[in-house]
């Protein structure tokens, strides 16, 4: 049953990707990329990664779509049809895909007991969370307590990204210059 659901979701994901490549109306493309995010979120739920699914649904389907809509409002609403069909991009994409699939052959099976993920620090976190932190959601315990430094780094990255966007796009400098009046 789980395999069927996973396969179904993966095929829907591939179908959406193909549709994104073929559709020329950019509004539809933005909506389809939202669909991609939702499908990925469902896949994460099937893999029991609820927190990741949550983030994917909120950021991928929610915020990204809005920002993409904002972007196409500033640029164009239709993609120009390509004049000639070139095979180089297709070859590059196929090659990369094949390399990635080849890479997964060496990976441990999903949920395998003896994989490095399960044998390194994972058991330690699982064991210590109920004793030392006593929060039911171990993901929160790992993110905010055991690996608090990492999360501080992530927040700093978000902070820097916001700073960059404000400085580059929001036109604060322009407004201030105009406020000073003609000189």
């Amino acid at each position, binding site marked *: 049953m789980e395999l069927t659901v996973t396969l179904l979701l993966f095929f829907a994901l591939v179908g959406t990707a193909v549709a994104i490549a073929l559709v020329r109306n950019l*509004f539809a493309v933005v909506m389809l990329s939202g669909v991609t995010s939702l499908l990925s979120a469902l896949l994460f739920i099937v893999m029991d990664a*609820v*927190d990741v*699914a*949550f*983030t994917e649904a*909120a*950021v991928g389907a*929610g*915020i990204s779509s*809005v*920002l993409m809509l*904002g*972007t196409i*409002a*500033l640029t164009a*609403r239709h993609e120009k049809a390509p004049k000639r069909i070139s095979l180089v991009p297709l070859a590059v994409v196929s090659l990369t895909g094949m390399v990635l699939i080849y890479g997964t052959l060496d990976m441990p099976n999903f949920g395998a007991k003896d994989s490095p993920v399960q044998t390194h620090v994972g058991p330690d976190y699982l064991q210590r969370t109920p004793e*030392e*932190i*006593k*929060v*039911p*959601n171990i*993901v*929160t*315990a790992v*993110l*905010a*307590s055991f690996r*608090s*430094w990492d*999360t*501080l780094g*992530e*927040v*700093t990255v*978000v*902070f820097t*990204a*916001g*700073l960059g*966007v*404000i400085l*580059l*796009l*929001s*036109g*604060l400098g322009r407004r201030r210059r105009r406020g000073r009046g003609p000189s």
Partner: protein
Amino acid sequence: MEHHLILRVVTKILVGPILLYGLYVQFHGDFGPGGGFQAGVIFAVAFMLYGIVFSLRELRKLVPDWIVHQLIAIGLLLYTCTGLVTLFLGGNFLDYNVLWSVAYKGQHYGIIAVELGVGITVFAVMLAIYYAFAGRPPQLDDKDW
């Protein structure tokens, strides 16, 4: 979107529950899925929805740029200051055990403070990016869609 009566009414009904859900995700992150990142995004989405339907000008009156810009820094400061407080209380940086007489309660308070910092920064950054993108002309005409 002045003439979209249904959108305006539905937005008015939806914004409140979305904000409430954001707060739930923020403060219930210890017990269920979620946490600061998701809560910040959900909280920002409520404001964006308002901005899309009731025009950006209305939203900017409600949440001016300078508040958003300060919130970006306040969130990060809250996170860092939690670490500094634990330093001054005799622990390591971000070692919440020293925040309370019982170690695991200290952990709870530390996690809540830190997640709040994450939530505030993510919320403000999302809103700032939205302002930066949507605040640039040309404004969209309904007929263009």
